[in-house]
């Protein structure tokens, strides 16, 4: 495999990881959006950490290997319009998105009133990770 093959593979693989991060975070949002107080937030917070790590690796990898490719491949320049547009659009929306997802998951912690209704059998006491996360940060 040539250097170009490696760069392209790693660039695309990193982009796959970045999109996987968006899918993971979207699934958590979809699951917790309308279920405040009736689902155990612990697993969803763990999932949000996975989404966050995927974005860290994927977002950075896509950027680094993409710029490397643009410099390495003759015929592309960093100041080509489509590359500049991609760099501008790549400005990370991740911290806010992850914050929303974590807030959504944390807000879905069971509350005594909703748990006692017995509507959802999976409701349980909030995990220690949920409590510690809530005590450390403001959801919004």
């Amino acid at each position: 495999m040539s250097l170009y093959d490696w760069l392209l593979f790693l660039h695309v693989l990193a982009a796959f990881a970045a999109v996987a991060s968006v899918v993971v975070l979207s699934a958590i949002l979809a699951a917790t959006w309308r279920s405040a107080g009736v689902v155990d937030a612990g697993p969803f917070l763990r999932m949000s950490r996975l989404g966050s790590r995927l974005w860290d690796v994927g977002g950075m990898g896509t950027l680094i290997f993409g710029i490397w490719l643009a410099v390495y491949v003759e015929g592309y320049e960093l100041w080509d319009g489509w590359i500049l547009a991609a760099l501008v659009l790549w400005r990370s929306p991740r911290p806010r998105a992850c914050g929303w997802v974590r807030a959504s998951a944390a807000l879905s912690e069971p509350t005594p009133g909703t748990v006692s209704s017995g509507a959802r059998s999976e409701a349980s006491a909030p995990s220690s990770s949920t409590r510690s996360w809530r005590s450390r940060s403001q959801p919004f």
Partner: protein
Amino acid sequence: MTIALIRPDDWNFPLLLHVGGAMLLVGSLVTVAALFLLAWRGDSPGLIRLGFRTLLIAALPSYVLMRVGAEWINSKENIPDEADWIGIGYITADGGLVFLLISTILAGVAARRAGRHPGGGGTLGRVVTVLTLVVLTAYLIAVWAMTTKPG
């Protein structure tokens, strides 16, 4: 130094459809694998249900996008079928569909059992986890083959 080859403009959309579908498919499978891994030990009907829905609502439509895009771009590029990387693509895509369908059916049954009896659907959930990880590995090999084009 590698010289850039600029593809014709009318190849762009089919290629975007193919790669975009593949990205969403892999993202969905990562989500499903993570959900079922989290549900592996505990009885978590919510996680199993979400995994089933992700397979049904995200993974299967993404597969269709990826597969339709693949045929479309293949018809435009006229790549010989005997190329190794095309062969790897077809094997992983078609074999992966079988695994994907079995996983979706098993996840549906597991979600139903888990909803009825706490702790139910555990074994089926573990089978889905393994199947999903196998498909995910195959698709990562396919990504390598599509980008490096061996043979």
